[in-house]
């Protein structure tokens, strides 16, 4: 009986799954969890519908239970495509909800593997109610325990909202797809022809919609990435993230950083080089790598402690802030804040991206999210201004007055209301108009402006920058700041919750 319970929808269905190049629910759980640690719950649960069209299988549409990843407890549910196409019925929903409840009780992460045809039409409203149960728990668990979703198969219609509410979504290329309305309906209603992969595949969601935080090359890669992600996180919001010995000297200086910024301030460089230099063992786990590439966010360790890194990327859009980068970063910051992960910000941004596209799509609304998130966060916040920091973007990127704890700046930092070119066009408008050689005069004035206003010492005089540091020592300085802030406790006025502009 145990054997048949563990064969899901039957060997022929398992064959079918394998022939599509997909693993079964139990095989996936075996890859994800430590060997021998999985305890399956509700193995013999069957659906209660009387409809003869749908066969009864042990376990119904999902495999649920608990186990360990690198010795740390997690709960997991994995839709079983071999049972009625992994469709969600009443009992499947109850199994998954039970797993989520347990995870909440115990305070450990919950990981969901989606491979589902959607609601079980034959069970009618019971299916929809089952989704409601799951969505409610997603919302309750949000900010309490880490929730991770792996899309290794279809996920369509309303079902997609569960992954959307979880903290991180990872999709496997060519296998995972998510959309609210599928290609067939799109074709019918809009006469638009589009393939499954193009409409809602891993790449589409990782690059265009930002729904997917990670793209996995294959199922192995998917589980490796989940394990890596989990290793950075605490079990729940009351715990601190685990400290891992990394054998990377916290006092390591890197003289390469002194020359990493090109001579020409308009030339691009890769911010990730700086990130890799300052974190432990150059181990930077980037989140949302392909979405809003003008800002880089991700996890790393510094001095053995998990940190959330936020950094402008001058290689794209010159590091300017825009709608997508603002929302991407705001969500990341709020996640870190929920789970006691300190935030390290590296700044080099010329401002917000101008244009009607941004304005009419609401850069005002979305941009404010970033500011709100920084203000709200009570975890230790350390900011280091590496290059440009102009105007509103300077404020938004973890500035002192948003209650960032420690603010560093490199000597190359330029902090000003406007960039030199723009500023002098306004301030010296008359001067330039009447000047014989406007181009040369502009250049001269821009240099003057740079020397007088746009250097970090002005800000340091006011205490807005705590220390102007030698770039080579960025790592030791940040780690020292984090150590000093480790016990930080900050409170906010009591409220049910703020009204962040969504």
């Amino acid at each position, binding site marked *: 009986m145990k054997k048949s319970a563990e064969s899901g929808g039957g060997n022929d269905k398992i064959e079918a799954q394998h022939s599509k190049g997909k693993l079964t629910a139990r095989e996936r759980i075996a890859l994800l969890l*430590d*060997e021998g*640690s999985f305890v399956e719950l509700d193995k013999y649960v069957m659906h209660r519908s009387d409809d003869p069209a749908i066969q009864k299988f042990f376990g119904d549409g999902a495999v649920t239970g608990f186990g*360990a*990843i*690198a*010795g*740390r407890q997690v709960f997991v549910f994995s839709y079983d495509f071999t049972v009625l196409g992994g469709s969600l019925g009443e009992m499947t929903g109850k199994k998954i909800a039970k797993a989520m409840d347990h995870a909440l009780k*115990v*305070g450990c992460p919950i990981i969901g593997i989606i491979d589902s045809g959607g609601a079980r039409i034959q069970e009618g409203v019971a299916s929809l109610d089952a989704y409601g149960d799951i969505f409610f728990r997603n919302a309750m668990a949000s900010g309490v325990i880490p929730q991770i979703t792996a899309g290794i198969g279809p996920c369509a219609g309303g079902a997609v909202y569960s992954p959307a509410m979880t903290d991180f979504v990872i999709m496997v290329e060519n296998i995972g797809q998510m959309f609210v309305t599928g290609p067939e309906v799109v074709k019918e209603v809009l006469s638009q022809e589009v393939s499954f992969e193009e409409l809602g595949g891993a790449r589409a969601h990782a690059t265009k919609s930002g729904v997917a935080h990670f793209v996995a090359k294959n199922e192995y890669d998917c589980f490796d990435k989940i394990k890596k992600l989990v290793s950075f996180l605490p*079990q*729940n919001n*009351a*715990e601190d993230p*685990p400290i891992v010995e990394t054998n990377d000297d916290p006092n390591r200086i890197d*003289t*390469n950083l002194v020359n990493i910024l090109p001579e020409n301030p308009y030339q691009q460089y890769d911010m990730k080089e700086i990130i890799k230099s300052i974190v432990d063992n150059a181990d930077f786990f980037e989140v949302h790598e392909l979405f809003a590439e003008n800002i880089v966010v991700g996890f790393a360790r510094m001095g053995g402690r998990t940190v959330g890194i936020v950094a402008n990327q001058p290689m794209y859009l010159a590091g300017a802030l825009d709608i997508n980068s603002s929302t991407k970063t705001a969500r990341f910051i709020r996640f870190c804040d929920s789970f006691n992960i300190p935030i390290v910000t590296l700044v080099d941004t010329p401002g917000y991206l101008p244009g009607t596209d941004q304005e009419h799509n609401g850069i005002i609304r979305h941009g404010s999210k970033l500011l709100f998130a920084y203000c709200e966060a009570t975890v230790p916040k350390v900011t280091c201004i590496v290059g440009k920091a102009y105007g509103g973007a300077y404020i938004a990127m973890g500035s002192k007055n948003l209650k960032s704890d420690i603010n560093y700046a490199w000597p190359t930092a330029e902090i000003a209301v406007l960039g030199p070119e723009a500023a002098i066009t306004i301030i010296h408008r008359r001067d330039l108009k009447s000047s014989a050689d406007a181009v040369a005069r502009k250049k001269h004035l821009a240099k003057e402006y740079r020397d007088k206003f746009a250097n970090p010492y002005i800000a340091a005089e006011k205490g807005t920058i705590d220390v102007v540091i030698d770039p080579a020592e960025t790592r030791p300085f940040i780690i020292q700041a984090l150590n000093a802030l480790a016990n930080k406790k900050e409170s906010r006025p009591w409220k049910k919750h703020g009204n962040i502009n969504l």
Partner: protein
Amino acid sequence: MSKKISSILIANRGEIAVRVIRACREMSIRSIAIYSDEDVRAMHVKMADEAYHIGTAAPAQSYLNMAKIVETANAAGADAIHPGYGFLSENENFPEMCEKKGIIFIGPTAKAMEVTGDKMKCKEVMNKAKVPTVPGSDGIIEDVEKAADVAHKAGYPVLLKSAFGGGGRGIRLANNEKQLRQEFEMASAESRAAFGKAALFVEKYLQRIRHIEFQLIRDSHGNSRHLFERECSIQRRHQKLIEMSPSPVVDQKTREGIGEIAVRAADAVDYLNAGTAEFLRDPEGNFYFIEINSRLQVEHPVTELVTGLDLVKLQIAVAQGEEIQFKQQDLEMNGCAIECRINAEDPFYEFAPSTGIVPNCNIPYGPGIRVDTYLYPGCNVSGYYDSLTAKLLAWGRNFEESRIRMRNALDEFTIEGINTTIPLYKTIMNDPNFIKGELSTDYLDRFKIFDKMNEQAKEEVRERALAAVAAVLLQSEFVKKAGATQTTTSRSNWKMRG
């Protein structure tokens, strides 16, 4: 006139810098090292008495920056500069500049370098001195008709070589006149691009040749000595991999005969200090002079092991104006020495360069083993410089003993973090053809050494499979335990919350 050298600036890096520093220490000479940004933590910097930063990583900004190096030498009060090998060691402007600035150059004179550096001029001088050279053009050829004429006289196949630039690059093969004309076009264009003019020469392509060279030392009093031969036939793309002394095909008579020719060659160019006369030997036993390398070579330790002499100290003595103390007949070859160049390249993958930090290494030692290296646990193997990380040498009373010692030392030599050519040498040490002494410059392809290497690797994997699986099983056990202990440190906050 002799000038006592009390300090030497070593204008080089890596293992040769370490080698020269050791000689300095033995002679109580102050050693001055230079380093680029890449070599801040390098061994030669740690070992020297003083070290000066010379520039950024790229060689042009650092180890090839002649002016800066001489300036640093003056500032540091160095009496002399040792150029090592590669970099500026065969640049005739270097000794010139040193002389102008009152620094002794430990090596040949600018004049001698000029002659030896110009292969055509050198060939002329050798022909006059009755030193046998490879049949081919007597001078630089700038015109394809002349090339065809010379090639026809010397006999196909022929090689087209650039008159400038050494180290075995830019050599083209032509099997017939048609090919010659094609290659000539391309080679002229390259030469013009690199050196400003199309200067090529044509040489008969000798097949199944052995590369045998003689170590030379000549002082400022006209005393020349040869320090016997080294066989360096095992090469890849004209880069030497293994060198040894004595050569299996050189008997005492030949040694004396060719040695004398080598000495004559050194005299003919009025050479000074250490150098090497390179010859090619065809299967009939004829030796043809190729060129004089006017520097201390990578493989000099091979000669040191079989003669008992310290070549670097000899170099310094000659530079000080001293006379060579021993006579040619005082020298005797003792035992056999083999050197393997441990390069940071992956022999299983087209010798792809391998760079990075070496977290750990185990350097072999024991009877007859010598290792010249700059490796130490935690050191950096840089992509800006050449791939030689270590020279592993084994000396034995006879070839067999040195071969076995080398084989065992290769087993002991482990370097983590980078790929090295060690597996290739392990295969060669066990290869029957190598044991028989069947060497030639096409050795690797001729005896399908790479196939053998891949086979051997498979065998080794089989032997280690059991332990490998055991290790992986253990690892997963640890991972499980490690995580479990983490959260039980103190009372969980989760439980304490309302």
